[in-house]
């Protein structure tokens, strides 16, 4: 019998800047298919990945928001942002494509500590 481990994936890059964004999401989908409970944390510039109305076609890049929108179908609905990081870009949770929980910055360390596996590409 294998004990169930909680996985946290940390996103740190702005949209369209790095293949890590896509690679991290692919890990989320694969692990969810193996019934590993997955949570996503978007730190700093990565909150911009969640911004509504991205026009990826102008950059001739793949639109990751479609994958992000599909996460719920994979039972991945635990997404987290830090309030201060949203405020830095004058964003509110209403501007985001996903329904995110907000965390206080001083709680970040203990939040991460609660997970069994953390991947931070």
């Amino acid at each position, binding site marked *: 019998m294998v004990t169930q481990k909680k996985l946290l994936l940390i996103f740190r890059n702005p949209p369209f800047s790095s293949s890590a964004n896509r*690679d991290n999401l692919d890990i989320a989908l694969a692990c969810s298919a193996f019934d590993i409970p997955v949570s996503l944390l978007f730190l700093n510039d990565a909150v911009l990945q969640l911004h509504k109305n991205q026009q990826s076609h102008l950059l001739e890049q793949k639109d990751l928001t479609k994958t992000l929108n599909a996460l719920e179908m994979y039972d991945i609905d635990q997404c987290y942002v830090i309030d201060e990081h949203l405020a830095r870009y004058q964003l509110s949770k209403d501007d985001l494509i996903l329904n995110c929980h907000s965390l206080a910055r001083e709680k970040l360390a203990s939040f991460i500590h609660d997970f069994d596996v953390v991947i931070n590409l």
Partner: protein
Amino acid sequence: MIFSLIIYASQTASQSEQSALRFTRNALQQGHTFHRIFFYGDTVTSMSNLKITSRDEIDITDQWLELAKETDLDLVVCIAAAVKRGILDQQESKRHQKSAANLKEGFCLSGLGQLADAIIHSDRVITFGN
């Protein structure tokens, strides 16, 4: 303790993969075991058997293979990351109707499911990234 590693950074642009190799050697010497070494992202480009390493440099890829020979390491290269970067085994070469295969012998291409399996079966998963 049972470890698995995710190696993510480019071998030519970063020291990460070498650090991972040294970590693995030392942990094995101390009696720990490894469930899987999972190569992901740009690091997969170094598993091409067309790569030439200059004589005064050490080929880390060969060192993984030497270590694997002595200790039975499971060296898995992410198939999606590999085919996207032109690293193909015979089967993928045939499937995509390419003229050649170039995955270095000793590594195997497989999916992210192997990473999920490693997460489930290891005490620690360590990422050697950018």
